[in-house]
């Protein structure tokens, strides 16, 4: 760990895979239509934002991908996308 560590700002979005029932999405859609809006195809997901330390962008991406499969998403039912942006040296 002697090498210099960089900080990266990470954004992860986790969505239920297509084909699985998104009950929350359905409820939201109904409620919005009740309120008089003409809404369809509603889906609900989660966003995570955090800062991570890594040696370089490659590593940061690898780590984030790992975190997604190990904790933030369940690859069996979720799909996820992420972005990693360098924010500075430590």
């Amino acid at each position, binding site marked *: 760990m002697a090498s210099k560590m960089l900080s990266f700002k990470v954004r992860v979005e986790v969505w239920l895979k297509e*084909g*699985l*029932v998104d*009950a929350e999405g359905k409820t939201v859609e109904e409620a919005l239509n009740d309120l008089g809006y003409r809404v369809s195809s509603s889906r609900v997901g989660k966003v995570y934002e955090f800062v991570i330390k890594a040696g370089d962008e490659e590593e940061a991406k690898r780590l984030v991908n790992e975190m997604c499969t*190990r*904790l933030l998403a*369940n690859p*069996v039912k979720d799909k996820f996308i992420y972005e990693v942006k360098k924010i500075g040296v430590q």
Partner: protein
Amino acid sequence: MYNKLPLPFELYEVDILKASEEDLLKISSEMGLNLNLNEMKAVKEFFVKRGRNPTDVELQTIGQLWSEHCRHKVFKGLIVNDEGKIVADNMLKNFIARATEEINAPWVLSFLEDNAGIVDFTDEHAIAVKVETHNHPSAIDPFGGAATGIGGVIRDVLGVWAKPIALIDVLCFGPLDYPYDKLPKGVKHPRYIMRGVVAGIGHYGNNFGTPTTTGAICFDEGYVGNVVVYAGCVGILPKPKYIRRVKPGDYILVIGNKTGRDGIHGATFASADLREDSEVSSRPAVQIPDPIEEEKLKRAILRIRDEELGSGITDLGGGGLAVAVVEMADRIKGGATVWLDKLHLREKMSPWEIWISESQERMLMGVPKDNLEKVLKIVNEEELECSVIGRFEDDNRVRVFFNDYLIVDLDVSFLLSPPKIVRKARWIPPNYDEPSFPEPENLNDELLRVLSSPNIASRENIIRTYDHEVQGNTALKPLHGEHGGPNDASIVKPLDRSWKGVVISVGLKPQYSKIDPYWMAASSIEEALRNNIAVGGRRIAILDNFTWGNPEKPDRLGQLVEAVKACYDFSKAFNTPFISGKDSLYNESPLGPVLPTLLITAIGIIPDIRKAVSLDLKSPKNPLYLLGLTRLELGASEYYRLKGFIGKSVPKVYVNESRKAMECVTKAIDRGYVRACHDLSEGGLGVAIAEMALSSNYGAVVDLSRVRREGVSRNDLVLFSESNGRFLLEIEKKSASEFEKLARDLGCTYSKIGEVSSDGSLVVSGINGEIVIDLPISEIRRAWKEGLKW
């Protein structure tokens, strides 16, 4: 071999008439039927007699109905030893059911037959109970798997027209500090699994609105590759509303969720590549839980029940519509016609998928023509969807149509009688030594270490994420009072106009199966009973839930036979009938088989919940009595485990002693002698007295030299022996002599081993009179409360 028929929907004819043995196996595997050669031959024979080939839907129907999950083939099969001698034939009938039949208790209203077991409660009401396993789904998706486990077992209880009043969750995980780098590929870390499972159970129970009152959690290396999730549900129903009078002509309704591709077994025609991990028999796709949908279902079902509009009901569980329709038709010894295209769907699916989909939150109901309109109105008011998908018939045939095209035409009796399987079993006891290590000097540290072991420490962090009081009827709670003491059982008072309570407890001793599955099962039964009796329960019925490895391996099956034998022996011996249960076999992972695990759930009653007894110490100077004999029985104990040993001397069950102790406790409670009571289990006497004290604002003084013991002469071993059959009681001081007389009259081994103290510490003197433990209760409480960090 598959011939697509020229129809506006997907249907294949499968050429089985000309299939060779090899072809038969290929069909079974390509279609994901999971049938062996013998079974496939029986299928072929059936169609040869019919003189035609089956459709894919028919083969899928047979695959589902003949699955291990639905037919309990191992439990009903023939089991032989290495010499080919029969060791068991139909264990379900000849061990489990036989015990219940021989006990022949008049208060058992329905057992091992309907969706849930049913016992008498009051003049008007009965109690229904079911416990399920949901191991495989929870391994794949801990949150969804555990949640749908709860959802599924709730539907079993709704499936006997009962209102759910309590939930049970019993969970086994790998050690939370298991090293990440030792995990085989594809196996998730116990921490991740536990977080998901606990959240899933809380999510479903809390949203659905039934209190999760009872459970257990166990950690062992044997669960790293195979998480174990038991989900149970207790319900109540007015006896006259237990309606099962479906008649030919009654409509078949599916109420609830839209049907989609959930839980359809992994294999399709396209993906021929299955079973690369050959120990795992099926990998149902994930199921998405929706507790609110089920809450609506509950409302509708209870309204339909109260107005007696339905003629029969069952849940849609494993095997989906195929299994539910066939089993319901069988109940009336009749048949059914189904119009499969009428079902409300979420997506476009082929007929076989619709027929066996395991979409959650759906129920099947029989409704007489005249009541249809009223049922539909209720369903509508509860914002549920519903389809009339067929009609019951008086022949023994199930016929399924899709767009007027006949796609299934099978005999009900054929579907319910798969060829009997024959399996080999071998039981070779392991050869462990009794460990020898010097007696530790400082038992303070030993006690704190045992108390903070994850297997013993407080489960408060988990239990408080479950609503255990919704419905307002939880009279004795899993966490007692201010300090969250670990009560032995919980009590629900389900009726406003009666003081009667339902007492719910469990017994779980999987560690003992490392040494001997027979005594593991015996101990589990005995512990479940003792937990129940400790709070005031009686007239106890039990449920068995097995989680085992691959029964095709003789050693696994050998252990299973041992455990099943014990089930018969001790159910009979304690006069406690089995009313329901379930087995989950094939729990294997790259790390090997699951630790053989038997959950015993005990359902007792207490005539008046105001007489319930909790474990916390109540007032200084009251004497403490130990019932039962302490033996050198530390094999697979928590104490040995923490020292790195397994040992040999697994606790046994001495029925006579045990029954006397139980009778003594019940009588003493009824006569008002008992202020506090706790059973001795993991961690033995040391943990029991510590838990009673830490649950209260008092302390205790205990003298180990007064403990009635056999073959134990070391303080640590007396303190941590896990001998069965023991209770620790706080007796009202003025009743002490009456209590002793009662114990003597019953021929019960008892001894006054100390008393409640007011100075807030636990002081234990050893066999030779020296002080071996002196600890402030606050420190004991901290160790216990902080042991299970996650």
